[in-house]
């Protein structure tokens, strides 16, 4: 037992069991879901769907960065290629929306396996550079390939009928479909983070050599989380293609990779709810400042710099510190 009068320092002791945190998270999820169910009757559904898609995209990215400790600077590759494949499948092959999304997501997964296997051999900034290089390859491919429509992208993608029956044409119908996908994706991410796999992942993030010395083959875990992250980013991208009925070069451009980094950092990386809050902030901002044309990027950049300087842990990170609870 402990010798001397020492006890655990105050304020940094957390409960041995994580059930308290889990209950809090469940409550937040429930409230957010209730809000999301009511929201389309008060706010513009397409705007909401954009928030949802980016919330999923950023959460997928955060799974890799915040819990795997891997900074990818090329996540547009998975988001964008899934978007293209889904759009093509729905428009040219006439697949139903759920199949188009499934196919797009699958394409991102395959890409994730290939790029991930090559990228995880590098560490730190080199990892970021390799992922960026792969993403640029995908961008140039999209620019040249015949089926992507070059500068125009793939336009007027049909939203189609869910399972061939329910028309997703009306925004409100599509909204609930998108909500179901995103909630499913977010719950899956939550489970991944709070699984035996997630524990090993956090250990590798915190101290890779130590995890290896305990017998964990770190690269396999890193590849696994990379593929999961790429796949879920693809799910977001494919869904987005149906929402906007468009897949374009913007989705695979490096600025899209940057945007997801921004959303995640602003909201709070390594937190469950940070990417969701970050997506809401950034998408709102883009909407609000849309009239400023090219200045949107400048304004967004400025807010980002100020945000990161003032709250390094992101909005939710700060909140978590105040509440002394993992969020």
């Amino acid at each position: 037992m402990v010798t001397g009068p020492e006890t655990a320092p105050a304020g940094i002791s957390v409960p041995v069991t994580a059930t308290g945190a889990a209950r809090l998270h469940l409550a937040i999820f429930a409230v957010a879901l209730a809000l999301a169910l009511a929201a389309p009757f008060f706010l513009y559904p397409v705007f909401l769907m954009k928030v949802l898609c980016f919330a999923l995209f950023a959460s997928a990215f955060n799974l890799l960065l915040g819990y795997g400790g891997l900074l990818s600077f090329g996540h547009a590759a998975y988001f964008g290629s899934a978007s293209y494949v889904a759009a093509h499948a729905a428009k040219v092959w006439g697949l139903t929306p759920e199949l188009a999304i499934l196919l797009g997501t699958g394409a991102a997964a395959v890409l994730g396996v290939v790029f991930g296997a090559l990228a995880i051999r590098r560490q730190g900034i080199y990892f970021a550079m390799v992922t960026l290089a792969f993403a640029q390859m995908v961008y140039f491919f999209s620019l040249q390939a015949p089926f992507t429509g070059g500068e125009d992208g793939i336009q007027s993608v049909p939203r189609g009928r869910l399972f061939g029956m329910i028309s997703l044409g009306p925004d409100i119908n599509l909204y609930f479909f998108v909500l179901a996908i995103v909630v499913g994706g977010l719950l899956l991410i939550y489970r991944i983070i709070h699984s035996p796999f997630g524990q090993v992942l956090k250990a590798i993030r915190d101290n890779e050599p130590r995890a290896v010395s305990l017998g964990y083959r770190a690269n396999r875990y890193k590849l696994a989380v990379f593929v999961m992250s790429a796949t879920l980013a693809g799910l977001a991208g494919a869904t987005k293609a149906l929402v906007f009925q468009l897949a374009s070069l913007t989705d695979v451009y490096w600025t899209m990779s940057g945007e997801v980094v921004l959303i995640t950092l602003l909201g709070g990386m390594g937190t469950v709810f940070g990417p969701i809050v970050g997506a809401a902030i950034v998408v709102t901002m883009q909407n609000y400042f849309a009239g400023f044309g090219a200045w949107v990027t400048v304004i967004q950049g400025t807010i980002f710099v100020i945000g990161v300087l003032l709250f390094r842990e992101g909005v939710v990170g700060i909140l978590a510190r105040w509440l002394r609870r993992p969020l």
Partner: protein
Amino acid sequence: MTDRRPRAAGGEVSIGQDVLVARGLTREFSGFVAVDGVDLSVRKESIHALIGPNGAGKTTCFNLLTRFLEPTRGSIVYDGRDITRMAAADVARLGMVRSFQISAVFPNMTALENVRIALQRGRGDSFDFWRSDRVLSRYNDRALALLDEVGLGAFAGTAAWALPYGRKRALEIATTLALEPQMLLLDEPMAGMAQEDIERISQLIRRIARGRTILMVEHNLSVVSSLSDTITVLARGKVLAEGDYDAISRDERVIEAYIGAAHA
């Protein structure tokens, strides 16, 4: 994958035999030879100390033996098996586990979670991302017992980063012990610890050494003298002397190396 496997016929190891054998172990860093043709044999179930002045190559040796570094030349045999080219994680799975000179904990996890990560190895790989981590709570009791053993019982829920340095070292030892390794390589396990902690960890090491083999780097010579059966002295990457404490402490070359290093 299980850590414990039946020993292969012919590879039978009994008390008194060498469990870890390195031959001609050499590592160069762009021309600079940090470890230079080291021959090392560690007897099974002994406590073997590796000492030497700063920069002698002790940590580099550890890195080579545990496969965290690629040797330039030489061979390593552990428990009758050539591990010279094996992956570091697989060496750990054979039951040879190391600690690090700079305290190696998982800072953003609680002390309990730190130990549990090691216990979790008992279920093999943990790729089950679909299962709740509540399944890990069955390791809590064992983790708490291990924390108690190193005096950290009251810190179970504390994030590892918030522990004082000596406590981090203790946590690292508890984590290593959780694997119940056949062989432990401890790199300065007591550096930065208060005297009372040194006592406790010394006793702990002596206790866990029963039925296990320990190779440790340690600068605290009173600890070395009281704990170790055999001492190997390393200087400038080479083995200078080997023997028990009495022999080593009377060796002219050893005295010279230490004094020489102090005056360098």
